[in-house]
């Protein structure tokens, strides 16, 4: 049953991606100021939204883990973090690819890119920590705490970075993403693109989550076997 859901999500994701690609390259008109390169926007922005949303998932999973216990919450958070990290990376790469032809630099410290970059560092820290702790029960607890604290920090980060950028408007170019999408075709394209990326995220997340659950179950089985082995010595 669960496998059917995951497979259908995968198929849906493929369909939506193809639809989005068509709309981005054929359907939507070229943007007046920025030209063809602007089409990256339809990929870049949804990736950013997903990256932030996924981090929220990590934090919520962490709260449930600390509150209710149960390895499933940790597997949820772990899966969300890995998948979210992927889309965060894609957002940064697409941002760089957009910046280069637009302004001649590989990176700009505009407020959204900066905030997402810090989010990327937070993801990286979370995932590295999971690798660096040996005891599996401690990993879950520590990861939960880090996820919660980092997620609470994100709004403060966004606010401070935004304030930081407003004092140096002349130094670096500010990108106005999503500035007045006048043409309804642009809005439609953005929505389809968002749907495609969200469904792809959901599919990848569920695949990874299922893997992690399998791992947890295998560990429980192995523990049972080890216990049975010790018991045979009692006879």
């Amino acid at each position, binding site marked *: 049953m669960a496998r059917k859901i995951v497979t259908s999500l995968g198929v849906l994701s493929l369909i939506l991606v193809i639809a989005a690609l068509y709309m981005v390259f054929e359907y939507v008109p070229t943007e007046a100021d920025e030209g063809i390169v602007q089409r990256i926007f339809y990929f870049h922005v949804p990736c950013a939204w997903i990256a932030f949303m996924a981090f929220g998932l990590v934090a919520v999973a962490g709260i449930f883990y600390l509150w209710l216990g149960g390895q499933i919450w940790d597997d949820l958070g772990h899966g969300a973090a890995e998948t979210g990290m992927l889309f965060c990376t894609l957002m940064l790469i697409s941002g760089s690819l957009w910046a280069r032809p637009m302004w001649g630099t590989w990176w700009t410290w505009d407020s959204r890119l900066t905030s997402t970059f*810090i989010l990327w560092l937070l993801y990286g820290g979370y995932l590295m920590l999971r690798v660096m702790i040996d005891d599996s029960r401690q990993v879950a*607890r*520590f990861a939960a*705490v880090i996820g919660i*604290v980092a997620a609470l920090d994100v709004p403060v980060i966004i606010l401070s970075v935004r*304030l930081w950028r407003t*004092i140096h408007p002349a130094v670096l170019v500010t990108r106005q993403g999503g500035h007045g999408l006048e043409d309804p075709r642009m809005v439609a394209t953005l929505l389809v693109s968002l749907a495609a990326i969200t469904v792809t995220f959901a599919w990848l997340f569920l695949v990874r989550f299922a893997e992690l659950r399998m791992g947890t179950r295998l560990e429980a089985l192995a523990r049972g076997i080890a216990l049975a082995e010790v018991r045979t010595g009692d006879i």
Partner: protein
Amino acid sequence: MAAFTAILRKDLRLELRSGQSTIALVALALLVLVVLVFALDPAVARGPETAAGALWVALVFSGMLGATRVLTAESENGCIRGLLLSPADRAGLYAAKLAAAFIFMMVAEAAGVVMMVLFFNLEFDAAMMRVAPVLALGALGFASLATLLAAITSRARASDLMLPLLAVPMYVPALIAGVRASAAALSGAPFSAARDWIGILIAFDVLFVTAGYLLFEHVIAEE
């Protein structure tokens, strides 16, 4: 409350006896400032803006050392277990460690301010009074963040990498706000100019002290 006082007094007594942590923090702050003096182009890099930035870099690095030491002080003879066994509540333990880290950081900060004035061509004037509360807010925020994180990273491999890796991105808002507010204070700007930044610092401190207070019990227990 009694536990908080007993533990803090014990930590301060230990520190007064050996002075290891405060000396280490002051030394590190000084070294960071020296590196920055030589690394930055002297033609451009004198004055309140750069001075504030350099001082906060020193604060961050000495803060990481301070938080680590405050917790590893309990690793000899398994003393942390003695504390966990006792009736002392985990939040009180957190508050005591946070207070100790904060005090060590403020001592290092005071030394750092003196170095900063000397290295970056500033004056020992009223601006020092305006900068002190900003530094205190920054130190409190960092101490609360790093004490919570250090309890986690001390159990990880590559712990001296993991603490900065986690602490630095999380500290960014306070770092941005703190440097801007300090620069404003050092250039003689009125308090109102830095109002937004101070607001961010306060919000950051409230967030992390509360989060640490609530979450510390989950990270300090052993399994």
